[in-house]
């Protein structure tokens, strides 16, 4: 066991059982999977991406590149989970990934032997012949070898929430700087959110041994957190990663509320995506230690020195009893001291600096370098070259590397900011161009000592308070270490032919960077993309700096001149489920239900999605086995007697005001100024570019009141368009708009018996006779003894027809009443399919024809575009390309054999013409079987179509295997003179 007998922020009284690769182990509350595995003597935790090298834990945080495991199983299987951040729970199961047949004996470790062939970008130079082999042979092999963990493709059983938080100050990171900032701002009454990715707030204070005042760092942190928790103006978010800094102070955050539990409680989410709206933010994200590249520096047991210290201090575990530290800075010595204090055997401090300080209890090898390591599945020894050139071997089980610390600038650079190089700390600091409202404090700002971190956090909060016009008081901060960390940059051990790792996960070595330089890939972005440096799941948090430094050395430029690649969100990877929230499955988008929905369900209707709406598509009757039987019956019944269809989904806009008529006259291309009260007119709306936008009717209920209908699909866009015209184009017209789509349940009552049916429910004082209420009449009436209603005599089917609207709450009652009253006429409900058939039979354009590419002229309505007035779209509709005499025209098609199907989407060619684009004459937009004509019919756009009535063409659909001879006919298959609808 590698658990130290005392110490650590773990609950030794409780034991958690867990398994890794099927082997059971024990751990404690407070452990991560990584600390628990180390405690059980497990150093080997994964395999690298490319060479499948054995790997152990490198870090103690979210920057971990190596120790990635597949957590849980079934639908909860979660690939690429960092063992370093996975909080242990009882029953946790994890397996290793990217290894076959086992972690210890991985067949693809052969890649390691072949590494000399698998250099940076090798794949760009080969696998080109023969061309067809790429998809068939090379690529499948590469794909199988690549990737890391796997998903099951089972639906994720957990749910995710989204939420919105608002604050004066968001503090990112609850280490010393963040806690000091929170305390300062919190005590002054500011609304503060303090977020930390860890499950225990305190940051490095939990990992260090030095005291704050009289307390240990961890105790001080706990006390402050307790005080903060008691303030109502402070919100503490543990287990919460700020994933990105977006415009104007908006931050994305993911709170992992149940990842430390076996599974979320019923109804509760696994994670919550918070969108945080902040007036100010302080980034206190600390710093990340960087490795030193030397030959075979990737073995299990070699880790960051700070991480080694963290494991010992926070979790009371060590990977081995005998350890060493390889450093270029004073912080490495702190690790050695902490390890010594816990009774570990520190074989040496190998310090690259000639002027390395001494260390009590450990041998310091100044000016020395670690030049190699040994141990196949775990570190056994390292080879050290001393300042005098002598080499000798140290037997040990763990090595801590410290190449210095990089301030964690990621979030400061999510917008335009470029970090700036600082020679003193040999690292990049946040640049000047920070996200709006952001300050940086603590180690993230290069303030590495605890004292400096505390002070800078408090200062940042004071600045925020002063910007808010609040007065704050800097809290009494405890005395803490204020040491200066000297560093002499040292990036990689030279003079070796062996591979020295920079990017552990993606297996990018110093040699790869050298090759990229040799081949001209010298800009940082080229370097990254060519070698894949920093493109792994850790986004190069430990890797990028070393790669840049090696490239800078090769080009002879400074690191500042070399620059960095872009920091992009998310800070650490985010589960897709959290980003989607509750909008999944059937809840992806809300439903809109029609007023007759409940009734239609009772009738056994088949429903179809129309935008957000669910509409009845048809109403199957007993004995009907095929949808066509139902639809044909509904059409025949409507045309022979009467049918009823819920048409509530059509957009309805009440247009009111003194200038309503003049307004509509500019919105529609045809005239509306002179429409009489009590009358309806068909209107065609153009976009300003002259293309048809939408069509519908406008009914004039009063001088200053119209009801406009839009197509179901365009209701929102038309409303927006009309508001644009009203507010931006003609701001002094007296026009008010309001959508009333939801307020009225509207039914089409169509067929020769529609009047007779309506007369049974419309209150008797209203005259529905042809004279009293002629075609295109409208009026406000009452039904069923006084229920207010609107009646329109309009027809989409081509039959004598009405649309009747009642307040939505009565829609259900009205459809039931219509069905009951219509019993004697055999009234038939019809769905969208029959509606579609009847409109094709009548030759009305709908969505397939009004597709945003067609003009009034194409639609056969060219003459509607008035040149007597200025209406939207009229001018540009007159462009030559849109006025082509031989252009597309809407026509009808009858197959020569009535039972030959015509396919919507078929293209039109001369009979006998070869199936080539050059012979393309147009296309079929809508097609159906017409039970009225006992034939398939279609409408579509044909070049010069109006001059080709009677011609025979090919309607070819090679895609579906249809090729039908059709005769060009008028699109008005039924009652072209309109006698029925005027009856």
């Amino acid at each position, binding site marked *: 066991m590698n658990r130290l007998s005392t110490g650590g922020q773990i609950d030794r009284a409780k034991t958690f059982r867990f398994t890794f690769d099927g082997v059971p182990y024990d751990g404690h509350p407070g452990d991560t999977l990584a600390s628990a595995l180390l405690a059980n003597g497990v150093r080997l935790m994964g395999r690298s991406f490319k060479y499948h090298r054995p790997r152990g834990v490198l870090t103690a945080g979210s920057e971990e590149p190596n120790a990635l495991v597949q957590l849980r199983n079934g639908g909860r299987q979660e690939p690429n989970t960092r063992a370093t951040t996975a909080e242990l729970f009882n029953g946790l199961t994890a397996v290793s990934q990217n290894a076959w047949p086992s972690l210890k004996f991985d067949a693809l470790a052969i890649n390691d032997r072949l590494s000399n062939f698998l250099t940076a970008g090798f794949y760009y130079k*080969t696998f080109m012949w023969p061309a067809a082999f790429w998809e068939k042979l090379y690529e499948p092999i590469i794909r199988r070898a690549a990737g890391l963990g796997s998903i099951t493709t089972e639906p994720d059983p957990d749910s995710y929430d989204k939420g919105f938080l608002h604050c004066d100050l968001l503090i990112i990171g609850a280490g010393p700087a963040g806690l000091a900032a929170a305390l300062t701002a919190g005590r002054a009454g500011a609304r503060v959110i303090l977020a930390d990715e860890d499950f225990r707030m305190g940051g490095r204070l939990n990992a260090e041994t030095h005291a704050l005042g009289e307390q240990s760092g961890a105790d001080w942190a706990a006390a402050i957190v307790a005080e903060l928790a008691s303030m109502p103006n402070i919100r503490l978010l543990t287990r919460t990663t700020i994933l990105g800094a977006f415009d104007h102070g908006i931050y994305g955050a993911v709170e992992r509320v149940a990842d430390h539990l076996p599974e979320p409680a019923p109804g509760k989410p696994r994670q919550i995506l918070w969108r945080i709206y902040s007036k100010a933010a302080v980034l206190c994200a600390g710093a990340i230690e960087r490795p030193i590249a030397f030959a075979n520096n990737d073995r299990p047991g070699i880790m960051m020195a700070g991480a080694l210290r963290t494991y010992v201090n926070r979790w009371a575990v060590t990977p081995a009893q005998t350890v060493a530290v390889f450093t270029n800075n004073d912080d490495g010595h702190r690790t050695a001291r902490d390890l010594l204090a816990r009774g570990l055997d520190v074989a040496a401090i190998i310090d690259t600096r000639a002027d390395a300080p001494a260390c009590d209890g450990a041998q310091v090898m100044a000016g020395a370098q670690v030049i190699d390591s040994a141990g196949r599945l775990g570190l056994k020894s390292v080879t050290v070259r001393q300042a005098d050139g002598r080499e000798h071997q140290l037997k040990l089980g763990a090595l801590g590397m410290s190449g210095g610390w990089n301030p964690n600038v990621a979030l400061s650079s999510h917008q335009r900011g470029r970090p700036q190089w600082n020679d003193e700390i040999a690292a990049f600091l946040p640049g000047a161009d920070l996200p709006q409202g952001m300050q940086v404090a603590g180690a993230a700002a290069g303030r590495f000592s605890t004292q400096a971190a505390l002070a800078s956090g408090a200062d940042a909060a004071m600045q925020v308070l002063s910007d808010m016009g609040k007065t704050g008081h800097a809290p009494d901060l405890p005395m803490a270490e204020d040491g200066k960390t000297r560093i002499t940059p040292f990036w990689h051990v030279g003079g070796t032919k062996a591979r020295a790792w920079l990017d552990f996960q993606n297996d990018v070595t110093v*040699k790869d960077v050298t090759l990229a330089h040799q081949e001209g890939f010298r800009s940082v972005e080229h370097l990254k993309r060519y070698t894949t440096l920093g493109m792994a799941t850790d986004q190069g948090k430990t890797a990028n700096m070393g790669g840049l430094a090696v490239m800078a050395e090769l080009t002879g430029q400074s690191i500042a001149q070399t620059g960095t690649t872009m920091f992009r969100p998310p800070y650490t990877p985010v589960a897709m*489920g959290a*980003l989607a929230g509750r909008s999944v499955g059937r809840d992806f988008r809300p439903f809109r239900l029609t007023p007759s929905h409940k009734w239609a369900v009772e009738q056994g209707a088949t429903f179809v999605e129309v935008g957000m709406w669910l509409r009845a598509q048809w109403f199957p009757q007993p004995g009907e086995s095929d949808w066509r039987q139902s639809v044909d019956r509904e059409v025949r019944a409507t045309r022979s007697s009467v049918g009823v269809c819920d048409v509530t989904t059509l957009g309805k806009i009440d247009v009111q005001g003194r200038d309503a008529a003049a307004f509509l006259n500019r919105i529609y291309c045809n005239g509306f100024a002179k429409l009489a009260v009590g009358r309806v007119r068909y209107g065609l709306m153009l976009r*300003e570019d002259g293309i048809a936008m939408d069509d519908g009717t406008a009914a004039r209920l009063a001088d200053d009141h119209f009801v406009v209908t839009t197509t179901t699909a365009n209701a929102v866009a038309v409303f927006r368009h009309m508001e644009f015209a009203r507010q931006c184009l003609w701001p002094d017209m007296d026009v008010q708009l309001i959508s009333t789509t939801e307020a009225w349940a509207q039914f089409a009552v169509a067929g020769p018996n529609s009047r007779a049916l309506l007369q049974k429910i419309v209150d008797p004082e209203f005259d529905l006779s042809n004279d009293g209420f002629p075609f295109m009449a409208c009026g406000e009436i009452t039904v069923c003894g006084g229920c207010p209603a609107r009646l329109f005599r309009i027809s989409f089917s081509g039959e004598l027809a009405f649309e009747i609207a009642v307040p939505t709450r009565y829609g259900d009652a009205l459809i039931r009443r219509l069905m009951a009253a219509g019993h004697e006429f055999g009234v038939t409900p019809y769905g969208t399919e029959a509606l579609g058939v009847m409109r094709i039979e009548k030759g009305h354009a709908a969505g397939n024809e009004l597709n945003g590419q067609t003009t009034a002229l194409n639609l056969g309505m060219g003459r509607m575009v008035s040149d007597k007035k200025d209406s939207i779209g009229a001018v540009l509709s007159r462009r030559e390309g849109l006025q082509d005499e031989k252009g597309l025209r809407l026509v009808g098609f009858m197959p020569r054999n009535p039972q030959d199907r015509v396919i919507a*989407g078929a293209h039109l060619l001369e009979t006998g013409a070869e199936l080539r684009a050059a012979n393309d004459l147009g296309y079929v937009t809508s097609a159906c079987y017409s039970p009225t004509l006992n034939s398939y019919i279609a409408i579509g756009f044909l070049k010069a179509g109006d001059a080709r009535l009677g011609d025979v063409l090919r309607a070819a659909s090679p895609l579906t295997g249809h090729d039908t001879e059709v005769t060009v006919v008028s699109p008005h298959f039924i009652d072209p003179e309109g006698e029925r609808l005027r009856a």
Partner: protein
Amino acid sequence: MRYSAFRLLKEALSGHKGWTPAWRNPAPKPHYDIVIVGGGGHGLATAYYLARKFRQHNIAVIEKGWIGGGNVGRNTTIIRSNYLLDGNEPFYEFSLKLWEGLEQDLNYNAMVSQRGILNLIHTDAQRDAFTRRGNGMILHGADAELLSAEQVRREYPFLNFDNARFPIKGGLAQRRGGTVRHDAVAWGYARGADTHGVDIIQNCEVTGFRIENGACLGVETSRGFIGAGKVGVAVAGNSSRIMAHAGMRLPIESHVLQAFVSEGLKPVLPGVITFGAGHFYCSQSDKGGLVFGGDIDGYNSYAQRGNLPVIEDVAEGGMALFPGLGRVRLLRMWGGIMDMSMDGSPIIDRTHIQGLYFNGGWCYGGFKATPASGWCFAHLLATDAPHPTAAAYRFDRFRKGRMIDEKGMGAQPNLH
């Protein structure tokens, strides 16, 4: 230097000492016959084809930063020719054919992977529209296949078939569609152009055009004036900024399009899929990351980054289509600046200024167009006549009312 497995073997055994830079780093000459502004995919392809296919000499590509740093280096790597309109389809099919022979032509493995693209169908109207499209593709000599819901299910059993808000009713497949390793396209063309004598000049920003008597004589740059017989501008994303130097306003707006990649996963997604009822399209890269995207953010932007609402919208689309994605982690998001044109289609044309040529307005379609765009722009520059497959991509189509509007959205760029 020729790349091959043999060469790789030889270098591996001799310490990789022999590899030479993929392209030179020359100083600009005072004058070139043809200067291409923009070292992105389109500019580099133009230079390559000018030198290799149109036998032009004395060519330079001028790039303000590093080559391949624009949209060719920040896209979702999809190639396809499943376009609807006659103005587009022949061009994109030409492009797809060029992709098919690209690696052998360039001697550079750009990992052209014809794994197929599938556009899902969720409504009858969509099926009608895709039928029209698929038939058009076939008429133009491209491949298209209409799949039933059952066929889609056989190929992608893990999509949401049983609990979907917008059920999958089928799909339009193009088997020859797929993906290409995007950076390698820029590098391959750059290396090819360099091999044929093209000067690729990086870190050289164009600050103006020298125009006298209605003719363009060259470009002013951060490294001095460079004279040119002809200047071709291929800087999609920044077209308006550059062409403003020539006093032109374009039928183009710049918008940000975000794209995303997940952590690496073992193979799960065989081809490219496009959700038809939300904003989401996805493929899996050879490294294992799921590469996906959605809609543009929708506001004018040159910032190369976007905002959360679109990210959430894309994730919702992804989860709605593929419920197993929940525990897949999004690794990185980025933004590219799109030249969104007024009809959603590009422009490859002369300008009213003699000697100044323009290539831009690619909207989302730029990456897949790279080879044909380069070829057709080279054709225009070399012959002063439009290539037959790009004949519709003229400036004057808006004045004349001959828009090529695939989506039917009209003169509102953010809707294309």
